[in-house]
C-alpha cells in the first residue's frame, strides 16, 4: 500500500501543479462546482487503484489508502476492532450514499463548511479576499478557538479520530520519494487562506496508524440537533490506554475535538489531567472543567465552549466505562 510512481501518477501531479483540482469521490468538489465556487478543471484520482483498501504492517499497525471510501472504513471489521473510534466516526458522518462515494483522503482535505465561503456572493480569506464576512455576520457554526483570520472550523470528522490515534500522513509529488508527517501537520491553525497545507501537486496517498495498545478503549461523540445526517456542532474522540494491559489506571489518554478550531485539535490539558488517574468514568467531569476557559470564542460561538466541555466529557465517560 503506497503511491506507485508511475507515469500516470506523474502526469496527474503535473495537472495539479498547473492548476487542476484533485478530485477523488467528488462529493466536495462537485458540490462546490454546482454552487458556482469552482469551475474545474479537475484531476481525477479515481484511477489510482493502489490507494484503495487497508494493509496491515508487521507491527500490527494499519495503512489505509487515501482513496478508500468512508463506507469501506466504516464497515471494515478488522479496522473496527483495532481502532473503534475511527470506524464509529466514519459511520456517523454524512449519509450512506455520500459515504459510499466519499474517500478518506477527500474527507481529510475537504474545504470548510462556512456558509459565507460556500456562498459565491461573498468573498473571504479562503477565496482570495481580504476579510471574513462571518465575523461581522452570523457565525454560529464558527470556531471556539480563534487562531486565524478565518473563523471556520475544519470540517473533517475522520481527522479528529485519526489525530487521537496518532496517525501519520504519507504524501507524494511525482518527483521525489513519498514523505511522511504527523497528521496534524496537514493543517495550520494560523493559516486562514486554506484548509490544508499540501502544495499543488502533492497527493495524499496513505494514512498510517500505529498498532493499537492492548486493552485500549475509545469513543466518538457527535453533538447535533437532528438524530442523523448532520454536521456536528462539536465532536470529540477519547482514547484511553490503561496500565497492566488494560486493567489498571489510566496510562495514556488521547482526546481530540472537532468543529471548534481551524484544525482538528488535541486537548493536551485534558489528557494530562487524566494520566495516572483511576480508569473510571467519574474522573471525566473534573478533567474537562477547565476547557471553556481555554477557548477563545467569537460572540456567536460562546455556546461551543461549554458544549465542547460536555461533549468531551461524554466521550471520556464512554471510553472509561
Amino acid at each position: 500500500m503506497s503511491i506507485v510512481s508511475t507515469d500516470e501518477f506523474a502526469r496527474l501531479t503535473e495537472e495539479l501543479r498547473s492548476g487542476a483540482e484533485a478530485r477523488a469521490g467528488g462529493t466536495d468538489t462537485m458540490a462546490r462546482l454546482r454552487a458556482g465556487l469552482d469551475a474545474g478543471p479537475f484531476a481525477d484520482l479515481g484511477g489510482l487503484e493502489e490507494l484503495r483498501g487497508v494493509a496491515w504492517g508487521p507491527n500490527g499497525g494499519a495503512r489505509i489508502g487515501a482513496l478508500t471510501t468512508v463506507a469501506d472504513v466504516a464497515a471494515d471489521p478488522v479496522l473496527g476492532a483495532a481502532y473503534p473510534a475511527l470506524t464509529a466516526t466514519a459511520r456517523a458522518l454524512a449519509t450512506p450514499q455520500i459515504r459510499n462515494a466519499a474517500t478518506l483522503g477527500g474527507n481529510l482535505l475537504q474545504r470548510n463548511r462556512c456558509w459565507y465561503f460556500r456562498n459565491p456572493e461573498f468573498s473571504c480569506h479562503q477565496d482570495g479576499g481580504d476579510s471574513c464576512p462571518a465575523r461581522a455576520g452570523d457565525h454560529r457554526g464558527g470556531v471556539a478557538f480563534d487562531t486565524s483570520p478565518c473563523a471556520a472550523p475544519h470540517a473533517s470528522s475522520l481527522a479528529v479520530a485519526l489525530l487521537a490515534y496518532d496517525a501519520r500522513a504519507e504524501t507524494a509529488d511525482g518527483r521525489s520519494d513519498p514523505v511522511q508527517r504527523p497528521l496534524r501537520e496537514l493543517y495550520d491553525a494560523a493559516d486562514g487562506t486554506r484548509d490544508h497545507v499540501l502544495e499543488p501537486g502533492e497527493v495524499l496517498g496513505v494514512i498510517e496508524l500505529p498498532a493499537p495498545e492492548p486493552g485500549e478503549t475509545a469513543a466518538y461523540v457527535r453533538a447535533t440537533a437532528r438524530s442523523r445526517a448532520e454536521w456536528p456542532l462539536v465532536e470529540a474522540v477519547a482514547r484511553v490506554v490503561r496500565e497492566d494491559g488494560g486493567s489498571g489506571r489510566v496510562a495514556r489518554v488521547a482526546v481530540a475535538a472537532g468543529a471548534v478550531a481551524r484544525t482538528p485539535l488535541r486537548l493536551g490539558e485534558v489528557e494530562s489531567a487524566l494520566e495516572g488517574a483511576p480508569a473510571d468514568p467519574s474522573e471525566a467531569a473534573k478533567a474537562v472543567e477547565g476547557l471553556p476557559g481555554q477557548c477563545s470564542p467569537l460572540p456567536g460561538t460562546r455556546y461551543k465552549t461549554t458544549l465542547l466541555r460536555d461533549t468531551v466529557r461524554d466521550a471520556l465517560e464512554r471510553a472509561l466505562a
Partner: protein
Amino acid sequence: MDTTVNGEHTTVHPAPEDAAAETLREELGLTGAKIACGQGVCGACTVLVDGAPTASCLLPSTALEGRSVTTVEGLEGRHPVQRAFAAHDALQCGYCTPGFVVEAAAFHDRWRAEHGTGAPDRADIADALSGHLCRCGAYEGIYAAVASACAGRFDEDASSGADGGARTDAEDKITGRARYTTDVHPEGCWEAVVVRSDRAHARVERIDAAGAVHVDLLPEDRTVRYAGQPVAAVAAPTRAGARQAAARVRVDYRDLPAVLDTGTAATPGAPLVYADKEERSAAPSSNEGGTAPAPWRGNRRGPLNLGFRRGTAVKRLNDAHARGDRLLFSAEFSTAVQVHTPLEPHACVARWEGGDLYLNVSTQYVRGVAREAAEHWDLDPERVHVRAEHVGGGFGAKSALSTESIAAVELSRLAGAPVRLVFDRSEELTDTGNRPGTRTRLAMLADEKGDLSALSIDTWGDGGVSIGSAVAVHGMLIYGRAPRRLRDFDVVTHRPPGLPFRGPGGPPLAWALEQAVDEMALRLGEDPIALRQRWDGNPKRAALYERAAALPMWRDRERGARTGRFRRGVGVAVSNWPYLLDPSAQVELVVEDGCVVVRTSTQDIGTGVRTVLARVVREELDLDADQVRVETGDSGPVPGPGSFGSRTTTSVAPAAADAARRLGERLRASADGGPAASRENLKAAEGLRTTGTRARDRRGFLSPPFNNAEMALGRGLAGAVHVMEVEVDTRLGRVRPLHCWAGIAAGRIYADRQARNQAHGGVVQGIGYALYEQRVTDPVTGRTLSDNLEDYRLPGIGDAPEIEVYFHEEGWEHVPGGGVGLGEVSTVGVAASVANAVRDAVGRRPLDLPVRPDRLLEGLR
C-alpha cells in the same frame, strides 16, 4: 465512455464537469432520479453504482466508466420494497420516492441476506435511510413499508384487483415513471437562468445582457428591495450556455440604504422599504384571505385590531399586573422564518404554438395560473393550457403565476423555442416565499374559578417585504368569547417576501397561546387537557379530549421534576382551523373505452386527491379499480379548486359524487334492469358524459363566495389535539420526539391511508418548525445564508416520532359528503405540543423557536 445502466451496456458522452445525475437524466432520459438539492443532502438522486447507493448529483459522470448503474427504472416495479411502498402509502408527492425506493431496495437485499425475514427496527431503518428527506413527511409509512418488505410480506407479486388502500398514482411514483415539470424537456427546448440582485436595496440604473436572449424582471420603479430579487432572466440552448450568459449580464446598481432586521426597521428615521402610499399598495402579502387595510408608521404596519370586549380585557390585565396576580401569565415568544421547501423546486416549461400558450408548471393551482396567464399576456383564456401532472410538493408556495412562469413565457416568445426554467435549491430557499417570523407578546389572566378572564396578544410579523402577517387574529377562533384584544402588526425589512404557508398564522399563534394555556394549567394545578376541555368552545373536539386523556402516554406520564441526563416529557396542544371550500368546483365524468374517466382542473400535490376522486366514483357506481381513471393536473376541463386552504377534498369529492349519481342514473336507464355499471353496459355507454357540482351546505356558507367566486367560508372549525412525548438530552441539548398522538376532527375521511399520511406529514413539519428549521440572512448584506439543505435543516426519518392518528368523523353533517379538509389543522398545534413537552421534561419553557441545542442548554444553565 462505456458504462452499464440497468443491465444494458451503454456509451455516454459526458462533459468532465457533469454529474452522473445529469448524464442519466439528460442523455439517457432516465428521469426517475431527481436533482432536488444538488448537494448530496436530500437523496432524491440516489442510484446504485455497483450495487452501492450513491448520490448521483455529486458523482462525477467520469466515475461511471466501467461501472454498473441501477436506477429506479431498473427495478421495474418488481422489487418487494416497491410493492410495500405502494401498499403502505409510503409517499405523498412522490418526488423523493425514487431515491427512497432505490436506497430501501439495497437495504432490503442486504438485510435479507444477513437476517432472513427478521424485521429491522426503526433505528436500523433510520440509519439506512438517513440520507433521504421527505418534505411531505411520509416517514411513518416508509418505516412500515421497509420493515414489512424486509419481513418478507411483499415477496409475492400481489396482482389481485384489490388496491388495498394504495393511492391511484402510487405505481407511477414508485417506478420513476411519474413525470414532474422538472422532467419535461420538449425537443429543441432552451434553458433559462434568473439573474438576481445581490443587493438588499438598490435602484437599477442599467442592465446589459451582453447580447443574450433576456427578459427584464424588475418592477416599474426599477428598485430591488431584497437580496435575491429577480432582475432579469436569460435563455440559451443549453443550461451551461444559459449559466454563462447569466454570468455575463452586467447590472449597474445605485445602492440605497437598507434595513435588514425588524429592530432597526422599527426605529425612527430608519430607511423605508416603502416610501409612499403607492409603493405600499404594491407590497406582496403572506395572507391567504386578502389583506385588510391598516395604518402605516414608517416600516411598521398595523395594528389590525380584533377581539371581544377589548377594553375590559386590557383593564383586567392591567389591574392584575398592578396587584401582582399569580394567575396572570405574560411572556414574549418568537418564531423563526420557515421556508416551504418542496423537494421539486419552482419550475416551468413554456412554449408558444400558433398563438396558444402551453405551460407545464409545478403549481398548486393550474386553473389560477391559466387565468393569471391569460390576463398577464392578454390572451383568450381558451388559448392558455396549463399542465401539472405531478407536483413535487407545494405547501403554499406554488399558488400563483410567478417568476419562473413569467420569465419562461417571455423568453420562449423571444427564443422562438420552448424554454425551461428550473430554480436551483438556493433560489428555492431564498425567494419562493416563507412563513414569516414572529415576535409575540402575550398576557393571559385566569380568575379565581379558573376560567379565562382576559387575553391580550400582540404579534409583529417578520415577512421581509411582505405584509399581511395574521397571527393574533386566530385567537378569535378558540377558547370561547372571554375578553381579549388581538393585534397584528407587520414590520417590513429589505428581505425576501413571505407567502401563505400551510395554516398561515396558525403555528406561531399556537406556539405562544398553547404554551400560555399550559402555563395556566400548571399555576391552577389542573390537568392541561382538562383545562382545555373546560375552556374550549369547539364541540367537535370533546371526543378528542376524552381519547387524549385516556392515552397511556398521557395517563401514565411522569409527574414532578425530572432528574438525570435524559429526561422525558409529554405535552399537549390544540388547534382550530377555518373550513374553506371552493363552491365553484365541478367534476366531469366521461365513459371512454369502457372506463369512467374523472376530470377536473385540480392537481395532486401529494394530498391524494386523485385517490379521493377515484374512491368516490367507484363507491357510487360500484366499479373495479381498473374501471376508473382520474386525470387531473390540467387547466382544460371543468373548474377545480386550487390545492391550498385545506379545501380540495371537501370541494371536489361531493362534486364527484354528484357526477357519479348522474352517470349512474343514465347508466341504469340504459341497463335494462341489469347492473348499471357492468362492463358491457359501460362499453355500450361510450362517450356518455355527466358533470357534477359542489352543492351548498345546509344553512349555506358564512361568507358569500370571494376570490373569483372560488372560495367560501363554511360553518364550523376543524379541530385537532396533539399529544407529544419527547426525550431531552440535558447534556448535549438534543430534543428527540418519541411519540405523537394526533387526534383530528374534520368529519368524514374519504381515503383513510392518504388522510393519515397527511396527518403524519403535519406532525413531521411541525417538528421541523419546533426544532430545526430557521431561515437565516446575513445581518450585513441581507443575503440568505441558509440557502442549501445542509444549513436549512428539514427533519429526517430518524427525527420522526412514532405517530398514531385518530379521526373523529362526526359533526359535519351539514356539509355534503360530511367531511372537510385536514391538511392545515394537522400541523398548526404540533410545534406547541413539542414546546409543552420540553417544558414538562426540563422545567423550563422554550420561548424561542426553533429549540436549538444552544438555546436549550443556555436555558438550563
